[in-house]
Every structure is written in C-alpha cells, then in structure tokens.
C-alpha cells in the first residue's frame, strides 16, 4: 500500500514537473527526433538477401550450406525466350548467343555460371565413338543446319525439356548467382537487357528464385512505404471523428510517429539493417500506440465534461493520475508479447522483437509525457458543452449501460454461444497449414507469377530439391549397387509427383554415355553393371567434355552424389510430400552404407519456415503465460489474470480458425501477427478491468459498476477498435498478399478482442464477484 502511495505521489510530482517544463520537453523531443531522422537518413539500409535470415549454425542449414558449396548449388535466374513459331531460327539463336555473352559481361555474373543452348554440351554417339561439343558456335543459317540442330537437341535427354522446351517454342538461359549480388539495380539491369532482346516474334521472361525473393524483399518495404501514409491518413481521419479534436489527434499521431522514428534510429545506429519483417514495426506501432492516446484523451474528455470548472493543470493531472497505470500495464504486456519472439532462431525476428518492444516503450513514455506537455502547451482539446452534444454523450452512456445490463441478463446464452464459437473455430484452427511459398504471396496477376507459371509449364520447374547421398568412402558413386538404388529413387519419385518436372544426377551422365557408346541403342540407356566401366566412362567424359558440369552432380572422390529434382511449385504442402516420399528410401540407402540428406533452396526455405512456425508457437505459449503472470501480478489476483486472458484466447482461436476454415495458409507474416495479437489484444482487457476495479471499489454497487465501466472503458475501447480496424482495412488494397493478410488479421483480431472483452470477459468478470466479495468481508 505504501509503495503504491509512493508511486502515486511520484507520478503526481512527475506530472507537475512535466507540466512546468512542457516547453523544454517538447523542444527536447523535437531535437531527439531530428537527430534520429539524421541517423536514419545516413545509416539505414535495407537487407534484401533472404539468406541473411537463415540460422546458419542450425545443423540442417549447416549441412545444406556444405552441400551447396560442395556441388556449387546456387539459385539461378532463368531467362526464357519464347517464339511461338519455334526457337530454331537464326534470329532467336542469335539472341541466345548474344544474351549469353551479354550476361557474361555483367559484373555480378561469372561467365562459367551461364547455361544456355549456346554453352551446353552435346554428348552424342558417332559411328566410331563419343562426341562432346557445343550445339552451335556460329549461328546456323541454312534450313538443313537448323533442322539438324533441332534433331540434336530432341534426341538429347540432358537438354531436351531442360534448356529447350519439348514443343520447341521456348529456350532457357540459366544463370547461377552468388549470394548477395542481387540488388534492385541488378534486377532492373536484367529486365532492361531482356527487353532489348525482344522482337522478331520473341518474347522474353525473367524468372527464378533470386527474382522472386529479390522482388519480395524489395516489394514488401516498397509496398509498406506506399501503404503506410494511407493507413496513417485513415487513422487520422477516424481519430478526428472519435476524438473530435485536432489537438488530440495530432498529439496522438506525434507519439506514434516519434516512437517509430526513435526505435528505427536506434536500430540503424547499431548497424542493423531493415529486413522485410521489421518494416512491419511502424504499422504495428500505429495500431498499438494510438490506444494510449485514445484512452487518455477519452478519459480527459469525460473528466472535463463533469468538471467544467477545474483548472487546466488539474484536468491534465487527473488524466495522468487515472490513466498512467493502465497505459503502463498495457504497454508492458504488449512489449512482453513482442519480446517472447526472442525465442525465435531467426535473427531478423529477434530484431523485430527487440525494436518493436522498444517502440512500444517509447510510445508509452511519450504518451505519458508528450500528451500532458502538449496539452499544457497547446491547450486542452475542446469539449463542446452544447446541450446537443451532452445529450449525445448521455445517450452513449445510457446505451452502454443498457448493453451492460442486457449482456449480464443473457449471460448463459453468451457463454454457450462463446463455447460453440470456440469449438467451431478451434476445429478450423486444427486445419491451419503452413505455406512457405514465396510465389503464392503475389497475386496471380503479378507478372512474376505469370512468368514463373510459363517457365514451370514449359520446362522442368524452377524450385529445386537436392537429395545428397553420402557414401562411407571414396568411389561409392562408381558402385552399380548405389547408383541403381538412386536411379530407382529418382524414377519412382519423378513418376509419383506430377509437380516434379525432372531431375539431374550422375546417373543421367552415365546412362547417356552408356547409350551413345553402345551404338545409341535405347536398351543401353541404363546404369552399367560394372564399376570399372563406370569409372572409365567418367574418365571418358572428363576427357571430352566440360568436367565442371560433372562436379555439380558428384564430388571428385565420388563419395557424395547430388541428386537434383526440379519442382514446378514452391508450395510447402507439395514440397513436404516429396521430401516425405524421399525419406522412405533412407533405410534402403543406410543398408548399403549411404546416408540420405537434403539441401538446396527449396528445402532450406521449407526448413526455415518450419523453424519460424515452431518459434511462433513457442512464443505464443510463452507470451500467453507471461501475460497471465503479469496480469495476476498487476491486479494481485490470479483469478483476474485468468479472466483477462479470455479475450486473447478467443482471439487466437478465431484468428487461426478463420485461416483454417478459409484454407488460407500461415506464412511468416501472418504467423508473426497472430502471436503479436496477444500482446495487443490484452490491452482492452487491461483497460476494462482497471476501470471496473476503480468503479467497483468506489461504488460498491455491481450494477452501477458495470454500467459506468461500459460507459467509460467501453467508450475508449470501441474508439480504439474503430480507429485501428479502419486504418488496417486499408491494407486490403495492397498489391502484396502478406500485407493484405496483415490488414485483415489485425482488423479481425482487434474486432474479436474488443467484442470478447465487452461480452464474455465482462460476463465472467461480473459473475466472479471479484472486487465485491472483498468488500463484503
């Protein structure tokens, strides 16, 4: 009791100090903000390389990194040239050659990383032996030469369907990229280059994982940049409507903006770049931060109406004295909700957690300092004292009171309905699935989706899974036993999944050589039975072809093989099914001393997303318990703590339930928001319970308490919900699906938290008799 008294007096003293030095505080805030903007302008940069997100110390990632290094597995940019009349004409072939050379001249690209019809090896049999050479050096002009080129490709399984589409209307130029060379400029340069080669019936498409990832990493912050002002504008408009005061609106927005700027400036000063995830911080801080201002001004307005003659200082002091506690409590619970994300293994998410929490703390501090100081300096928001307005307010109070009474009367029905809803959405939540597809985050009309669809339709697929088979000792991949099992695995897997376009491995080289060295007879399109013969074939290949191609499928000791599968989708469900099928060969390989593992971007992306989801679930549970403990501690009652978590539990169930029922997969952004919703959703309950407690202790009358609480807190909460929901619904027009989802989920969560607080939580609070039983004692 003494400590509370002490805190109360300190807060009062602090407020007095703030009011005395309001000018200095405003100037100091401004200076700090100017400094922050300076830091931001000079130090901030955006990280577009998704690889930076990966926890490289994680064993599965470390293994994949090793395999990627070993076999030079890298993501590639794929440029497709389509000519409806067929690609075997001098103009198109000239373009393949020209584009191959032009790409090789770009500083981001190494010449040896480009594969096209111009650079590909043509392994073929001749009457006497083996020939490995280029398909063409000089562009063939005569019909005969063009026809023989077409035939050479059509009879070579290693090129046919891979570099030239089976219907001969499209051909690919595949360029492997190093990590972190992708930039907006590079992307623009590639697009510009490919545009230059259009014409003569040729249409060019640019696709591939680096393009998708890069576009996403560039588009997400960009989209956020265009959406943020619209969200802000709408929130300002709605704030104006509910608070009916320019001053209050401006001060509330200043708090939110300054806290975002400070938080980002500290991040930039520490040398941490902006990741796609952290671009969510400003928009989230707006949603959370405005709540403090709304509750404070809402209280101030109610107080001013009742105490018309109180001094300016008194009015402001009362606002701080009455509201500092719920504002602090809600901010702490929200910050804890964010900080629970520190359990994630993904660094950008950890940064997100820290700087979002910091922003929330800034918003709290600024609300408690800038709002009183600003109100002191610029004057209180006007409260219209006209009859009409007072009537309106009274009408709201009456309505709120009526609502409170009605709800308590039909409490059983409400409880039953809530239980039914929880069961219904709980069932939906059980159907939620995770999708790590990047492509599916773009709307179907986006050119990147259409390009990818084109390439996937004509060729083997743009997503790769690499099965890494590791023998115990050197020359394992010259053993017919190992090779034949791997061939079985490849054939069965490719046959089982329509989504797999094909694959490439050492087997393809050996089969091709075996065939062409046996007079091109199809029955020799198999793995030879003799390991010496296999070794000699490989030597023969090395002596006649480009051995670097070989080292992409097997290591030079022949201990480890890289079995690549090309998949036509990056949909997580499909990838998971393929991986699960491949896993079934693990034991067979183990029996012959070979370990089976996975690598490649398709795999690591899946792994990465699963890791994020795992982290989300952990942090969801963790934040739930921390919030429970915090509430119990704040209200000094576990019972109240439990009651306070009711709205967020319902919010979480409904949020996941809607996703499940509508078959919308979880992806990183939506998952992140769902768990953050706990931290935000709890605020309504905190404000409501705090006011309920104050009213209960003041009146001792249950009916009066519920009516007054609903009129006071219910008012502020509904204002808050309306502002945030309206602001976030704007994101539904975003071009970027995760941002749309963000808008929908935040709106939905705010709505359910709000409804949950004023209905079911309210009922349980009412039925619990808490704060009244104590008095009776």
């Amino acid at each position, binding site marked *: 009791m003494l400590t509370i008294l002490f805190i109360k007096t300190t807060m009062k003293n602090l407020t007095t100090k703030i009011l005395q030095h309001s000018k200095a505080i405003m100037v100091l805030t401004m200076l700090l903000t100017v400094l922050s903007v300076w830091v931001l302008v000079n130090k901030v940069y955006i990280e577009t390389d998704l690889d930076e997100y990966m926890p490289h110390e994680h064993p599965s990632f470390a293994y994949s990194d090793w395999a990627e290094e070993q076999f030079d597995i890298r993501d590639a940019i794929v440029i497709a040239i389509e000519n409806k009349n067929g690609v075997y004409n001098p103009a198109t072939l000239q373009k393949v050659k020209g584009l191959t050379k032009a790409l090789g001249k770009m500083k981001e690209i190494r010449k040896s990383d480009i594969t096209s019809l111009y650079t590909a090896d043509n392994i073929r049999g001749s009457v006497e032996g083996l020939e490995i050479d280029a398909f063409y050096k000089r562009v063939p002009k005569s019909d005969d030469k063009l026809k023989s080129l077409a035939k050479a490709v059509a009879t070579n399984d290693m090129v046919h369907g891979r570099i030239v589409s089976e219907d001969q209307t499209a051909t690919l130029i595949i360029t492997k990229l190093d990590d972190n060379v992708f930039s907006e400029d590079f992307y623009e340069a590639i697009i510009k280059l490919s545009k230059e080669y259009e014409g003569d019936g040729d249409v060019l498409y640019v696709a591939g994982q680096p393009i998708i990832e890069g576009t996403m990493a560039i588009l997400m912050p960009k989209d956020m940049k265009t959406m943020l002002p619209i969200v802000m504008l709408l929130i300002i408009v709605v704030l104006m409507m509910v608070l009916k005061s320019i001053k209050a609106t401006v001060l509330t927005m200043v708090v939110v903006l300054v806290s975002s700027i400070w938080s980002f400036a500290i991040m930039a000063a520490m040398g941490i770049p902006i990741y796609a995830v952290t671009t969510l911080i400003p928009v989230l801080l707006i949603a959370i931060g405005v709540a403090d201002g709304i509750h404070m001004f809402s209280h101030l307005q109610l107080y001013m109406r009742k105490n018309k003659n109180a001094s300016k200082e008194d009015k402001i002091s009362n606002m701080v004295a009455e509201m500092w506690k719920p504002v602090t409590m809600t901010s702490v619970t929200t910050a804890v909700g964010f900080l629970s994300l520190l359990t994630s293994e993904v660094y950008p998410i950890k940064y997100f957690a820290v700087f979002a929490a910091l922003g929330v703390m800034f918003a709290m501090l600024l609300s408690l300092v800038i709002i009183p100081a600003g109100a002191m300096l610029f004057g209180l928001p006007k409260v219209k004292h006209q009859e009409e307005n007072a009537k309106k307010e009274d009408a709201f109070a009456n309505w709120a009171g009526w609502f409170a009474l009605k709800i308590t009367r039909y409490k059983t029905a409400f409880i039953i309905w809530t239980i039914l809803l929880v069961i219904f959405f709980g069932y939906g939540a059980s159907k939620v699935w995770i999708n790590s597809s990047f492509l599916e985050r773009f709307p179907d009309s986006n050119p990147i989706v259409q390009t990818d669809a084109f390439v996937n339709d004509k060729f083997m697929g743009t997503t790769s899974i690499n099965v890494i088979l590791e023998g115990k000792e050197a020359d394992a991949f*010259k053993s017919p036993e190992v090779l034949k099992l791997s061939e079985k695995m490849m054939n069965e897997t490719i046959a089982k999944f329509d989504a797999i376009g094909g694959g490439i491995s050492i087997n393809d080289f050996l089969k091709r050589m075996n065939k062409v*060295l046996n007079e091109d007879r199809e029955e020799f399109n198999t793995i030879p039975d003799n390991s010496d013969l296999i070794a000699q074939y490989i030597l023969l290949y090395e*002596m006649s*072809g480009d051995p670097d191609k070989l080292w992409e499928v097997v290591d*030079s000791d022949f201990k480890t093989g890289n079995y690549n599968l090309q998949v036509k989708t990056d949909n997580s469900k499909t990838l998971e099914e393929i991986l699960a099928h491949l896993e079934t060969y693990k034991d067979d390989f183990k029996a012959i001393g070979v370990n089976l593992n996975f690598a490649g971007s398709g795999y690591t992306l899946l792994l990465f997303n699963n890791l994020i989801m795992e982290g989300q679930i952990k942090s969801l549970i963790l934040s739930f318990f921390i919030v429970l403990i915090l509430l119990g501690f704040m209200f000094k009652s576990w019972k109240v703590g439990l009651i306070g978590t009711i709205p967020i539990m319902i919010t979480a169930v409904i949020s996941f339930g809607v996703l499940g029922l509508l078959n919308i997969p979880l992806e990183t952004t939506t998952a992140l928001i769902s768990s953050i919703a706990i931290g935000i959703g709890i605020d309504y309950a905190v404000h409501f319970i705090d006011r309920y407690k104050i009213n209960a202790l003041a009146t001792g009358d249950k009916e009066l308490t519920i009516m007054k609480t609903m009129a006071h807190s219910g008012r502020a909460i509904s204002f808050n919900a309306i502002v945030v929901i309206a602001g976030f619904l704007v994101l539904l027009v975003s071009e970027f699906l995760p941002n749309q989802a963000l808008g929908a989920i935040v709106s939905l969560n705010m709505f359910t938290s709000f409804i949950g607080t004023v209905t079911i939580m309210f009922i349980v609070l009412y039925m619990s008799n808490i704060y009244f039983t104590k008095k009776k004692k």
Partner: protein
Amino acid sequence: MKHLKVMSVMLIIAITTIVMPAKVQAQTGKEIAWKVYDRPSPKDGESDMTMTLINSKGKERVRYLHQFLKEYDEVEKKVMFFKAPADVKNTSFLNYSYDDDRDDDQWLYLPALKKVKRISGGSKDDYFMGSDFTYEDLEKRSPNKDVHKLLKSETLNGEQCYVIESTPKEEGQYSKRVAWVIKDKWIPLKIEFYDEDEELLKVLTIPEFKQLKGYWTVITQNMENVQRSHKTVIKLSNIELEKGLGDEKFTQRAMMKGL
C-alpha cells in the same frame, strides 16, 4: 617549333640505328615466335607423367600415366596409358596431332568395354583430360597464325626474357597471349592467355626445365585458370629421348595391348 620536333625525332632514329647492337635490333616479335617454334625437339621419347588437378577448394586428384611420343613429318603421334587410379588402369589414349588446321584424331580404349572409341575430334580449344590445358595449349602453334609484337625485355625467375604479345589473325579461343620467352633457350617461361573478352583467363608457368640429350625439355608445367581458380600440374619423370620407337606403338592394337 614544328621543325624542332621533326628534327629531334629524326635524331633519335639516327642514334638508335647507329648505337643499338645489330643482334638485339634483329629480334622482332615475329622472329622470337619463330625461334620458339623452331626450337629443336627429339624425334621420339617416352616418360612417366603425373597429372595433378587441383580444384578451387584445393582438393587434388592425381593421375599416373606413361606416355610415348613420336614426331612424323606432318603429324605428331602420342599414346598414353593410365597406371592409376586402379579403376581406369590400362585405359589408353591415342592422339594424332596434325601440323595443319585439321582437328586432332583421338581414340580412347576402355578396358571394361573392351572397345577402342574415337572421341570428340575435339576442336583444339577442348580441355585435355579435364585439365586446364586445351589441346592447343599442349601443341606448337604456327607463328603464321598470329601477329607478334615485342613488348619489352625483362628478367623473370633469374632468366632474361623477351615479352611478346601474340594476337591471332583469325578469331580463336584466345584474344591474345603474352609470353615470357627465355633469351637463347627459346622456352616460354610464362604465358598469359586472355579470353575473348580480353580478360585474363589462364596463366602457364614452367617451374622446371632441363637440357636432355641436347634438347631443352620442360619437366613441370603449371596451368592455372584464374577465372575458375582451377589448376593443373603436369610433371614428367623417367624421361628417355631418341629411343627409336617403332610405328606399331602408335596404333589401336597397341592401345589394347597395354603397357
């Protein structure tokens, strides 16, 4: 002013013509190239050969071979037998390299297949046995095919060298080569190869050479592909020259017979 300039140029020309020793003055780039080309070489020979391939990660693969070589008027014949690794033992390789522009003829005998196979008539720019040497790199190139320019003279590894730049008259696999040729031995101690975009592609260095039976013979040569950071070292040992090897050594029948 103009007069003065012309005068001074004339004076310089006059002085250099008189002062420079006749011998040095005679060495144009073209002459140096011809000296290298015409350097006497043995009629035939055999040796052990170790070929070490080193990839960008520093991983080495070693092949042990034994080779026979014989010079004819218009063709150079070469046969190589693999001694190790075991799974390619007795695999043999026969190569006829013609002095004119014709592609090499080459055959490989695979003991496991028990067949001699003709392989890629290979343009001269194909890599030899998956090494960093192309066939052309291992052969003598007629100086007639290039335009040669003497860039400078300098000392390399303690040897006095001419540095000549050779640019092909017709488009080839290299845009140019720059060679450091040892004065009076006419061995190129180092050659830089530039790709079609005139970027440095490969560097050949000769760390070991000696005179055997009066012939300057290269013992060890390193070829490094700087673009792929891949390296090949070829080292000869047990060299025997002028043995009077018979023609039957260089036939498909001999390939199948083995060493």
